[in-house]
């Protein structure tokens, strides 16, 4: 894929468990101001279109699209909101530039998870109302079902999942943006209280507030405006059949298909050799392993062993979630995928600070839409 569209600016705010000092609009504004400054653009003059990512039920306001233009500099401009993963929104923005209709487009996603008083009820609202919801089990049981089957089929152990938690929380200690950095042992995860067997509390990423804005530009404008444009090499997204009764509980097929689409576009045949690192969904510890296998970063059943060997640590052969992932940075609801992508951008620019990887040229970001979904999106970037 030729270099047609690049990320020329990124901005972010929050990434804390609580952000009581600002409203969601003020959080978005802070991220937007930084992204536009980083890109060297004036949103009122230069940005032609805006894509935001939001889900009405997590905002507590329906038709949330109406609430986004002011704080993004998007008043009286083309704006639309995508109800999906942050990377779905990113891809929509990318496609707008690719059509040639727009030269500069901004994308935004945020989380004010701390403002939702009944988050598990909101999650349950995504389940089928007729044949699943009346059973009244907390929807985290769905992660329990999947983890159980995945561990059984692949021979992966709870200890290996716990190592993912320890690794990501450790990485987060070196990332000033991360809210949940910690030095914890495998035993801490194994001994933390069971949420829905075999998923324990520490296997789950804790929620966080935050906002991310990125500015995308067509090649000519990108080269003109940016000294370090980060090029979009491939994108892909996929939705599996959602049914809890018939879905594949072992393999994240949506991730495999999304990645294949992105690899094809980027001309990548052997991802573990051609990519330098990956930032992938780790909403739950086992998800990082399951997604690694689906994304062909290793063979099926091998991810747990790689974590054991330290291959996915910051200093390892193939770092996974050097940012700390959602386990270390906090889960940003639908902004989580953009947080993964943000880290890929910072790494490729050489701006990741204390957790900077050396000699990285190509990275993958993968976002999963969370429970109870089987949808995800992948983006491959190069510097």
């Amino acid at each position: 894929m030729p270099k047609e569209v690049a990320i020329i600016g990124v901005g972010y705010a929050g990434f804390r468990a609580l952000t009581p000092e600002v409203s969601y609009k003020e959080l978005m504004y802070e991220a937007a101001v930084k992204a536009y400054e980083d890109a060297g653009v004036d949103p009122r003059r230069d940005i032609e279109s805006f894509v935001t990512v939001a889900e009405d039920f997590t905002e507590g306001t329906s038709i949330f699209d109406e609430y986004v233009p002011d704080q993004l500099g998007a008043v009286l401009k083309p704006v639309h909101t995508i109800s999906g993963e942050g990377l779905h929104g990113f891809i929509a923005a990318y496609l707008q530039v690719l059509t040639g209709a727009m030269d500069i487009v901004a994308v935004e996603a945020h989380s004010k998870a701390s403002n939702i008083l009944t988050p598990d009820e909101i999650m349950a609202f995504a389940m089928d109302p007729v044949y699943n919801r009346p059973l009244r089990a907390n929807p985290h049981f769905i992660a329990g079902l999947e983890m159980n089957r995945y561990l059984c089929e692949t021979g992966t152990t709870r200890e290996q999942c716990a190592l993912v938690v320890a690794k990501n929380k450790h990485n987060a200690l070196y990332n000033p943006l991360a809210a949940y950095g910690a030095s914890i042992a495998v035993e801490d995860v194994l001994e933390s209280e069971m949420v829905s067997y075999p998923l324990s509390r520490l296997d789950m990423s804790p929620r966080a507030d935050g906002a991310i804005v990125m500015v995308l530009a067509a090649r000519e404008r990108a080269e003109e405006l940016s000294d370090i444009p980060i090029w979009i090499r491939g994108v892909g997204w996929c939705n599996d059949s959602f049914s809890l009764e018939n879905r594949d509980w072992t393999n994240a097929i949506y991730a495999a298909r999304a990645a294949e689409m992105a690899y094809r576009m980027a001309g990548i045949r052997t991802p573990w050799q051609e990519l330098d690192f990956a930032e992938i969904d780790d909403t739950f510890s086992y998800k990082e392993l399951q997604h690694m296998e689906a994304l062909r970063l290793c063979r099926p059943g091998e991810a747990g062993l790689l974590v054991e060997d330290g291959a996915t640590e910051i200093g390892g052969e193939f770092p996974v979630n050097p940012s700390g992932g959602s386990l270390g940075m906090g889960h940003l609801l639908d902004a989580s995928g953009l947080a993964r992508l943000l880290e890929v951008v910072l790494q490729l620019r050489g701006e990741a600070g204390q957790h900077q990887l050396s000699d990285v040229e190509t990275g993958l970001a993968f976002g999963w839409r969370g429970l109870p979904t089987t949808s995800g999106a992948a983006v491959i970037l190069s510097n």
Partner: protein
Amino acid sequence: MTAKIKEFPGVGLRESDFTERKVLFTEWKPDARYAWDAGVAIGRYLAELKEGRIIGVRCHHCRRTVVPPRIFCEWCFRPMDEWVYLEDHGVVNTFSICYVQWDMERLEEPLIPAVIEIAGASKGVGILHLLGEVDPREVKIGMKVKAVWKPAAERIGAITDIRYFKPIN
């Protein structure tokens, strides 16, 4: 509907068909609760309402004074420059007389929602509230109205700290 069909076969549904569960259905009552952080601008707005004052913000760039306040100017995309206390009276920009409740039940006494251009704010900038102490037939666009506040002890820092706006001469 084609005119050729003269008779419609079938039986209409009665409420009893549902209560006796002859017709099957599933009900769900969502428990969706939120507590939104007011933040810098709306936090101050609410705190001032509690004190019996209306506050707005001013952008020196486009020279607009707006209410409710925000920390940024949506037109200029820059931070607002200053807080400005506004009057608690203004002019009715537009109003409606609402004769139905939320469940579409008729109201004996209609509600009169109105956009009130607050004195001290820029032309066309106002807050949405209700009108009171006025015969619905007497309400006019351009009418001058003034806030009727709850007593200080009852104010909690909410838009309802103003009971309604009433006409003044």
